[in-house]
Every structure is written in structure tokens, then in C-alpha cells.
């Protein structure tokens, strides 16, 4: 399996994560790993680092960790793939502003259609 074939998706909503993973698998013909929390991402370890693109929800629910923490963990572990933040929150929200400061990450606002999803995954 090459790096470019794998998509990492970190999203706390079970429904959205399941739909995303199946859609990427079925429509985009990419392998996709769905992760529901920061802790699960850390537990995933090298499998996560092996993906070519990581799509991170900025808000990971009631846990103290956010997508920005996931970004930081990935980069600290030497992850060199593309990182995209997917958020449903206002551009002016402090977490989104903090994500914008991560210069090498793209920020995409929910909701997006499947065509846009393909563009995001393909880069």
C-alpha cells in the first residue's frame, strides 16, 4: 500500500466518520482510516503516520483535545503528508483562527459536496 492511497480521517461524529470512510473507499477508491478522537489517533501510531493525507475535524467533541492537538501530534511524530482541517465552525472562532496559523494546513468548511471531497483528498 503506498502512502498516497491511504486517507486518515479524524472526526468525533460517528455517523459522519462512517459515511466519509465508506465514500472514500467506494467512490474515490482510496483506503481510509477513521479515527474518533485524539486518543485513538495516538493509539493508532505508525498506521496513522503512514497515510498520505490527514483530514482533521477541528472540534473533536467534549474531549479536551482538538484537531489542532491532532495536527501537532502528527507533525511532532514526523508526519510529512498533507493535513486538511475540516470544520463546521465560524472562520472567526478561536480554534479556527488557531488552525489558520498552522501555515501548512488547508482549512475547509463543512458542508462540502462529494466533488469537493475528491479535490480535498487528491490535493
Amino acid at each position, binding site marked *: 500500500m503506498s502512502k498516497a492511497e491511504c486517507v486518515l480521517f479524524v472526526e468525533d461524529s*460517528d*455517523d459522519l*466518520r462512517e459515511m466519509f470512510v465508506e465514500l472514500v473507499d467506494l467512490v474515490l477508491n482510496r483506503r481510509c482510516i*477513521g479515527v474518533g478522537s485524539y486518543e485513538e489517533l495516538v493509539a493508532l501510531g505508525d498506521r496513522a503516520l503512514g497515510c498520505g493525507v490527514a483530514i482533521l475535524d*477541528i472540534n473533536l*467533541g467534549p474531549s479536551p483535545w482538538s484537531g489542532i492537538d491532532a495536527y501537532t501530534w502528527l507533525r511532532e511524530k514526523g508526519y510529512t503528508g498533507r493535513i486538511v482541517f475540516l470544520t*463546521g465552525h465560524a472562520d*472567526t472562532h478561536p480554534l479556527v483562527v488557531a488552525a489558520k496559523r498552522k501555515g501548512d494546513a488547508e482549512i475547509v468548511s*463543512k*458542508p462540502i459536496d462529494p466533488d469537493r471531497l475528491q479535490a480535498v483528498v487528491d490535493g
Partner: protein
Amino acid sequence: MTAPPDLEARHAWRGALVAAALNAVGMPFDYFLARNVPNMPFYPSALSALVAVSLIVLLLIRRRRATVRLGSAVFLINTLVSLVALWITSGYWATTQAWTPFQANKLGALAVPLIAPELRVGLVSIAGFAGTAIAKFYVLDPEIQRRLPIGEPWFVLIFAMFGAVLLVYRLRGLAFERDVLRLQAEAAVSAEVARGFLRLRDYANTPIQTIVFATALLRRRNPDLEPILLHINRATARLMELSRALKSYESMNNWNPGDRPSDRVAPSDRSATADPPRNRAA
């Protein structure tokens, strides 16, 4: 934040209270200073102070239900009893050689602009202090009139003029202050409404995204469902339009430091289904 109409009533209430307190304290003090004036009666000062105390009690009772009208009415009654008392006592003061004419009236004309609840009430009160001084002058004994310094009693008009200018200046300042507070209150409400809309939009975005992806999956797996999926597509497109429309509220909202996204405190959608989540790694 105090609403501006309440603030106006509170200003009026406070002004009336201060005016009554000055009367209640000032009149007995005036009598104390006049104790050596021949035949100076006690009753004008006492009645004026008594009415003032009664007005203070009324104001304290109505403290929670203060209105501008109440403040103005109390202020005018207080001014009226003060003027009656001064009218009587100034006649006795005038019989003394050392009398400085209409000091209390001049003081009143300058004190009114600092505490008057409304413009009309303030102007009437200033006119009362000036007018009664001038009228009193003309009912004094001609010998006393001749003895008064040059320019009296007309100096009181200069005090009245300064008082009127000060009154307008102060009331305009208060009105400006109330306008600023009103605008601040409106801005705070608008920001709260904007924040509410944004929370609504933020909370809806993930479910909308789920429907969009689920529809795409269904379309791929069940092409026969296309006519139905078109309806869902149109419905979700409208929801997405709504989401974009609510984006305009972002500019009205200032997030506070440490703000968390709204759904961090909302029930997780995990609890909405009994099925264990699939496609979860690890």
C-alpha cells in the same frame, strides 16, 4: 447593564432626592444663621424642611418604581416650598444692615442645573428662584431697596442665565451618555443573537455533511433511488444555502478568549444510536 429608560428615571429620582435633602438640611441651617435676625419666624424653614423630609420618604418608598414624572413632581414641589420659605425669610433678612441680597436665590439658580431631572422642570425652577427674588425686591420697603448694592436684584438674572446654560449642558451630556449605553446594550443583544445563529449553524453543519455523504453513497449503491435522492439533494442544498447565509453573522460576533465550540457541551451524536460505531480504527 441598566436600560436607558431606567437610567433616566434613576437620574430624575436621584436629582429629586438631592434637592429635597439640600432643602431639609439647608433650611434649618438658614434659620440657625438667622437666629439673631429680629422677629425671624421659625415656621417657614421648619415647614420647608418638613415637606422636604416627607418628599424624601416618598422617594425612598418609590425607589424601586421610580419614574421621571415622579422625580420631576417631587423636584417642583420641593422648589416651590423652598421659594415660599425664602420669600418670607428674605423679608426679615432685608431688615438687617449686613444682608447680602438674595444669596439663597442665587445659590438655588446655580444648584438647580446640577440636579434638575428635566429641562422644563429645571428652567421653571431657575426662573422661580430669579423671579421671586426680583418680585420680592419690589415689595420691600423703599428704604431697604435704596440701601441694596447697585445692580440688585438684577444680578440674580446673571446667575439664572448661567444656571440655564449649565442645565442644558448637563442634560445634553446625560442624554448622550444614555444614548451610548443604549447603543452598547443593542450591540450586546445583536452580538448574542449573532452568536446564537452561529451556534445553530455550527451545530447543523456536521449533520448536513453526513446527509450529503450518505446521499452520495446511496446514489452509488442504488441508482434506482435517484428520483428520491434528487429530492434529498435539493433539500440539503437549501440547508447549505442557509448555512452560508448565516455566515454573514460572523462579522457581528466577537468570540471571547477560551470560547469552545458549541457542540462540545451538546449531547454527542454517539448517544443517538444504539449501534456501535463502525469504521473506527484501533
